[in-house]
């Protein structure tokens, strides 16, 4: 049973990733070769990803150091917030950023009041800004993990040797950073390669077009399937390189676990260091929290006056999100159960398949599905179902990251006992796996729900005009320049995403047996 189900899950993932790719490859038009604007898109994609990852990582170092060596009220809150951008709908983050850095934003208003020109946010600066906002927390968490993994004995030794902060940096901290930073750098670079929504909204014309955006434009504006497919092939190759490089790199399996204990530090107690750390903490808190605060403030005004169509879209999104959660479980559980009972080699295979989904880009997937399904089914009709499925599949790597270790531990500790008592099949799932893996399942479900709720990917290709999801509705409101309604829709989307994550994650924890 499990074997069959996990084979079916594998097959579906392969169809979604490689199957769509094949459809795209067959359709790709190389008659015109790779055009100048294709190269420009490729160049911009790589440039912005590079800038985004370098800024995120460089900024993460002082932030992680400040958090690692200071205790302050709200420290655990800040650490929680560092997990939030992962479940924050990208389009909401963008709304928040625009309300500060946008032409009509806080900064622009202050600047024009002071007599300066408002900063130009569209294009490369905007794309990088949004990516740093979304990924600085991830980088900080990865670096922070490295910091807190420094054995306290080493810090004690350093203290007894009278190390000054600089000595400590050279002998203890720098070697740690040299191990941690490359991984963080690559992960963020890869995430930014296939980022779509950010480029869609923050990009400024042909100058700031990523490959993903170019696929979208070829398809949605020109219906040039040959060019769209050619670009999709480029994107897929980028994604494959991504998958190969990321094979061994870390995805978060939980938020903030174990990051909450600041180790005793003897160095850097000087006033200058303290001031610097406080400054860094204040700056990063402002950077991360202010846009969210703006979404809340801007959204509150008109949330009561939102048209029913927005609430209908919200309901649609919640349903899609719940369907995604269900599909994710149907895909992830058989794979996780099968893998947790077998060798590490097959676990690597499972993770590889998961990574295929991570490197699959929403536009390649969407275009591939269109090419595959279009002759038989109306893609517009299937838009919501496809959105649910694609989100379930793209959440799969995260779900597997959370589930496989949990199930492996369950098997290691209680597998023999269950076997000896003949607790097998459904009974094993009901009586052993479910109760003990509830936390991980709750986390995976919450993550899937939030990701699916905020997804602005495949839906932009097929979302029908009269039944949009909430993110698509929000995007259209922004496009039609209905700023107030867009603000409220953003707040609604933010609240629903956080609520769904909280609901599942909390559901997994509450009364969880230990």
């Amino acid at each position: 049973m499990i074997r069959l189900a996990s084979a079916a899950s594998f097959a579906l993932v392969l169809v979604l990733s490689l199957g769509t790719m094949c459809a795209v490859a067959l359709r790709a038009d190389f008659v015109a070769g790779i055009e100048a604007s294709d190269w420009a898109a490729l160049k911009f994609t790589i440039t912005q990803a590079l800038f985004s990852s370098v800024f995120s990582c460089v900024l993460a170092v002082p932030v992680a150091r400040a958090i690692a060596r200071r205790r302050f009220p709200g420290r655990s809150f800040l650490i929680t917030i560092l997990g939030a951008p992962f479940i924050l709908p990208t389009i909401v983050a963008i709304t928040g950023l625009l309300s500060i850095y946008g032409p009509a934003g806080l900064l622009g208003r202050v600047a024009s009041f002071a007599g300066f020109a408002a900063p130009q946010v569209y294009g490369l600066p905007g794309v990088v800004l949004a990516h740093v906002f979304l990924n600085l927390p991830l980088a900080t968490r990865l670096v922070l993990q490295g910091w807190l993994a420094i054995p306290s004995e080493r810090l004690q030794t350093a203290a007894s040797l009278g190390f000054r902060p600089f000595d400590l940096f050279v002998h203890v901290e720098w070697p740690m950073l040299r191990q941690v930073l490359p991984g963080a750098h690559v992960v963020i670079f890869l995430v930014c390669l296939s980022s779509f929504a950010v480029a869609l909204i923050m990009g400024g014309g042909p100058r700031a077009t990523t490959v993903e955006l170019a696929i979208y434009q070829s398809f949605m504006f020109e219906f040039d399937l040959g060019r769209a497919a050619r670009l999709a092939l480029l994107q897929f190759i980028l994604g494959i390189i991504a998958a190969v490089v990321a094979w061994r790199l870390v995805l978060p399996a939980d938020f903030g676990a174990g990051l909450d204990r600041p180790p005793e530090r003897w160095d850097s107690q000087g006033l200058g260091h303290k001031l610097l750390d406080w400054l860094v903490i204040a700056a990063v808190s402002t950077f991360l929290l202010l846009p969210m605060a703006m979404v809340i403030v801007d959204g509150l005004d008109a949330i009561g006056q939102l048209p029913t169509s927005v609430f209908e879209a919200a309901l649609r999104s919640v349903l899609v999100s719940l369907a995604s959660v269900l599909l994710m479980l149907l895909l992830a559980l058989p794979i996780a159960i099968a893998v947790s009972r077998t060798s590490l080699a097959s676990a690597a295979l499972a993770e590889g398949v998961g990574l295929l989904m991570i490197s699959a880009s929403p536009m390649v997937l969407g275009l591939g599905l269109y090419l595959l399904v279009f002759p038989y089914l109306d893609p517009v009709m299937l838009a919501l179902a496809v959105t649910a499925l694609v989100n379930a599949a793209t959440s799969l790597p995260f779900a597997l990251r959370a589930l496989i270790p949990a199930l492996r531990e369950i098997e290691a500790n209680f597998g023999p006992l269950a076997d000896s008592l003949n607790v097998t099949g459904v009974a094993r799932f009901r009586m052993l796996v479910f109760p003990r893996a509830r936390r991980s399942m709750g986390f995976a479900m919450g993550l899937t729900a939030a990701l699916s709720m905020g997804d602005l990917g495949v839906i932009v290709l097929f979302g029908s005009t009269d039944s949009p999801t909430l993110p698509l509705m929000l995007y259209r409101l922004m496009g039609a320049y209905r700023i107030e309604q867009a603000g409220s829709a953003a707040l609604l989307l933010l609240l629903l995403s956080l609520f769904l994550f909280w609901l599942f994650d909390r559901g997994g924890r509450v009364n969880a047996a230990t």
Partner: protein
Amino acid sequence: MKSFFIATVLAAGCTAFASADQPVLTVYTYDSFVTEWGPGPAVEGAFEDACECDLKFVAAGDGAALLARIQIEGERTRADVVLGLDTNLTARAAATQMFAPHGVSADWDLPIGWDDPLFLPYDWGYFAFVYDTRRLASPPDSFGALAQSNTSIVIQDPRSSTPGLGLLLWVRHVHGDEAASVWKELSDNIVTVTAGWSEAYGMFLDEHVDMVLSYTTSPAYHLIAEGDETKKAAAFVEGHYMQVEVAAKLKTTDQPELADRFLEFIASDEFQAVIPTTNWMYPARIPAVGLPAGFDNLVQPSTSRLYSSREAAEIRDVALAEWLEALSK
């Protein structure tokens, strides 16, 4: 003020009160057509009174993206009529073989002759950059002057939006093979490129840019609806490119008679009288009531420029590639 272009993005609301047994005529159009203050509500009310049907407008992006939308949906499209293409797109649209002849004949008041059997004109105008006299005392009067100036502009993407495409052809019509270098010089004036007209015009009204690509008729809105005389179209010495907006019936429509009636309605006085003060364009046929006051002192181009639809289709790809290359630098 903003309500001018506030798009009722969802067409769902329009059909909420329609009874189930009435036939539904689905019309795909661009966002600003179905806004509260756009032509949509008036057209819908007037046509539904006469047809005993449910006229459903579906906003599917800006004009050029409309065509792609129809192609994406293919023969399964629920659209019966598409409204919002222009002559720069009609050759491409005809090539899809998805449209049926309109069969309507009328005495058009267009600046050009009309004999297209598939596409029915409903209004026309001239593209122009609109500026605010309080912020820009002396606007540039040519592309060259614009490129030389520090004036910031927002334009629309020629792939998704008919004004964007119009500008592409305008530059090409004026500068011919020099168009590419003109775009290179213009590129630092362009703050951003939006997918649609609404977003661009919104940015202009929020004073993020000095000028926006729109129409010579746009100031009439500010004048008539708001009594605001500060918005003007910059007259270019080299003349302005013309746009004729058209509608057409899909071959695959399941309401062919209703669609024909709607196309006839488009040519009627009732429809045409609504256009000037809702879509803020010149009507394709001047209705009995004539043009509203405020339309008489608009910019009149020294030269009226337009490619035939066949030429436009031929030039488009080259012009687009030039544009993409110049602006991706």
